[in-house]
């Protein structure tokens, strides 16, 4: 377990709901639309305080993991109000305690901006997904617009002390991990995106 990352997010859990309130209100419909594509055995990575559970289709049963114990304590209250079953577990996405080919769908929300070794985490998700399985991601990434990209580069040393990196190439990282991009959509500028990847049936682990 990456204890430094765990400590950072334990500390961030105190004000997480406050800082994400506006985003949840504004971006919720996009998340709901993405999560409607969930099928089969599902793993949610980085559940946080459980703010996104409400955007899942009702009646589903899924496992939600997070590296932070404090986040999961807060998520438990929201999991209890979900009209379905959520199994919360503390786990590092880079060291998943699941067997190969376990899940049909993996879901992430603003996760791979924070995982210190994003490609390693994505490769773990690739491993636990069944052939033909999908990864559904709602992520913020580095902008390709010149001044905005530079701004996000400049802000990252500050932002990563308290939370996420702002300049990740998550689409590229998804491909490096072996996934094929099925769909990519810009939600806000070219910074907030939905990304859908597929573990092709014929491919081997990257």
């Amino acid at each position, binding site marked *: 377990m990456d204890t430094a990352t765990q400590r950072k997010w334990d500390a961030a859990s105190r004000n997480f709901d406050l800082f994400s309130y506006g985003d949840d*209100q504004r971006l919720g419909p996009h998340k709901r639309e993405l999560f409607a594509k969930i099928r089969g055995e599902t793993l949610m990575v980085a559940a946080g305080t459980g703010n996104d559970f409400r955007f899942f289709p009702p009646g589903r049963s899924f496992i939600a993991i997070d590296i932070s114990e404090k986040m999961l304590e807060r998520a438990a209250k929201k999991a209890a109000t979900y009209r379905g079953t959520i199994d919360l577990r503390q786990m590092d996405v880079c060291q998943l305690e699941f067997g190969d080919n376990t899940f049909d769908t993996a879901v992430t929300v603003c996760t791979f901006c924070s995982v210190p070794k994003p490609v390693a985490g994505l490769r773990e998700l690739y491993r636990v997904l069944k052939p033909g399985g999908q990864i559904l991601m709602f992520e913020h990434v580095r902008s390709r617009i010149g001044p905005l990209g530079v701004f996000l580069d400049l802000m990252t040393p500050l932002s990563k002390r308290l939370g996420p990196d702002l300049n990740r190439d998550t689409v590229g990282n998804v491909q490096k991990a072996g996934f094929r991009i099925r769909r990519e959509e810009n939600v806000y*500028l070219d910074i907030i995106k939905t990304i859908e990847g597929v573990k092709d049936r014929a491919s081997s682990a990257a």
Partner: protein
Amino acid sequence: MIFTIGDYLAGMLVGAATAFSVRIVVWPGMDMVIAMIVGMALGMLVHLVVGLALGPLIGMFEAMIPASLIGMYGGMFFAMRDSMAAGSRTLQAALAVGAILGAVVVAGVRFYDRTLKGVVIDTGE
């Protein structure tokens, strides 16, 4: 609709606060290059404070991205004007120009967002 209003109000606030802070620090006759660097630094500081304060209400990225452009470029612009004594004559006029610049930048970012928003790749599966 409420977020649209919030975006514009946040941008106008950042613009006005940047113009105010530059007016306090930069004086007519100050070396323009130094004034512009100071203005940019002040604008970045203002955008961080106001952006973090309003982010929870209107969304962190929707608050911070326009605010960063207003703070960075607005700070340099206001500092250049003030160092040349070519800026607004009164503080009220400077605040109004700041607010107008903020609104214009927000409008530009929203327009750019509309052009970029949507599907980038879709294999149709």
